[in-house]
């Protein structure tokens, strides 16, 4: 057993941890070692590296033997082995027997292919393990190289520049007030033309015109539209009044047509 477990179980990088190899009693040592490997492939790689040859030239048969011996010893010591170690052992035993068979009796896939596959997997794990060690050995920030201890910090202060003008402000306030003011019905002071003023306006205009005139021509030409509506109504009533008094004639060619009127000279 000693030739199997003495020496470092794994070439440990400083940053690797997890293998409990401290001075432990013999029986427990093997167990702890197994515990330190991350599965059968890891153990195989370690055994392969102990062949002290280039990983390309390792003997798979020798490797299989070593692994099987190892597992056997563990079983003799009645150490609990994780199932995948035993599965690997069974597979390797099969591989070994296939490799020893005469060529013509070899099953498919060929044991050479199986051995090659194992070999390739070990290689890939090995190069990644080395890569990890090289990566960890680089000049690492915070360990070998340092950033500035107290950077002032670069700040972009995003600021919204809000825009609003006086008109928008007071308009908004006006609208709030108007919207929320108690509803009071108020008759507004409106621009109107009273009947009296319409009467005097229409009669004076009739006095200076001899021809038929349309009622709309009597309206003040530049008045506010609301005043115009009021003036139209008042002037219409005034025209009716003047006709009733026999001071004017009214004519309308069609329904809703222009209303014409002409003064009657006394």
């Amino acid at each position, binding site marked *: 057993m000693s030739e199997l477990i003495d020496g470092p179980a794994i070439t440990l990088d400083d940053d690797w941890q997890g293998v409990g190899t401290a001075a432990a009693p013999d029986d427990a040592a093997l167990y702890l070692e197994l515990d330190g490997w991350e599965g059968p492939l890891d153990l195989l790689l370690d055994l392969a590296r102990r062949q002290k040859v280039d990983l390309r030239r390792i003997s798979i048969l020798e490797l299989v033997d070593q692994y099987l011996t190892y597992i056997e010893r563990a079983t003799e010591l009645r150490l609990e082995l994780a199932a995948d170690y035993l599965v690997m052992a069974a597979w390797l035993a099969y591989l070994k027997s296939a490799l020893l068979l005469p060529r013509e009796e070899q099953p498919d896939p060929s044991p050479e292919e199986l051995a090659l596959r194992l070999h390739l997997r070990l290689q890939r794990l090995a190069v990644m393990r080395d890569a990890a060690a090289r990566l960890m050995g680089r000049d690492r920030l915070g360990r070998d190289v340092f950033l500035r201890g107290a950077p002032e910090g670069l700040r972009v202060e995003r600021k919204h520049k809000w825009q609003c003008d006086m008109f928008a*402000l007071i308009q908004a*306030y006006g609208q709030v007030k108007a919207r929320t*003011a108690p509803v009071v019905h108020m008759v507004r002071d409106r621009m109107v033309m009273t009947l009296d003023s319409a009467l005097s306006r229409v009669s004076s205009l009739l006095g200076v015109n001899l021809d038929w005139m349309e009622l709309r021509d009597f309206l003040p030409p530049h008045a506010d539209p609301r005043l115009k509506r009021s003036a139209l109504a008042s002037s219409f009533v005034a025209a009716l009044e003047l006709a009733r008094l026999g001071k004017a004639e009214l004519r309308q060619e069609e329904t809703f047509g222009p209303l014409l009127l002409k003064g009657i000279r006394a």
Partner: protein
Amino acid sequence: MTTPPPDDLVRAVEAALFAAGEPMSAEAIGAHLGGADVRGALLELARHYDGRGIHLVERGGRWHFQTAPDLAHLLRREKEDVRRLSRAATEVLAIVAYHEPVSRAEIESIRGVQTAKGTLDVLLEAGWVRIAGRREVPGRPVIYATTADFLTHFGLESRRDLPGIDELRAAGLLDPVEDALASAMEAGDEQAASPDEESAD
């Protein structure tokens, strides 16, 4: 344009001060570097950095690197994007201006609409409204008032310059017909209260 490479002590002092979390005295640097006398190195470094974007300065006997003062404006940059205040925010601002100091509940009662939290935040961020304390009534609500920036922005000498209600009416700004139309047009503007809301400009 290459300088002769600095000697190792200068390099070590340079790196030590760079990595230090706080200004260091010459003694502390020296102790850190195994008891060296670093005064000469500090002076050489200060000379080297003179005129560069970084300066090595001594303050109260302790040394540290700092960025050149004339570049300060480049390092703390403000990025402004101009946004038009949403209608809701404008209303709230107007209410604060006319009624200050005023609580949020009072603003809501004047507006007749619930006011999103974001609306007041926008005004606080704009710097036009400030928290003016709390009203000493149950619940001690926060009360808001306008700021000097508000007056400046709107070109007002004082709040008394705001047009009165009569003037607003005379200007037709209290016309309920237009208001009804306007609020119908801008219904949904309430969401525009959040500062993220894009408002056209």
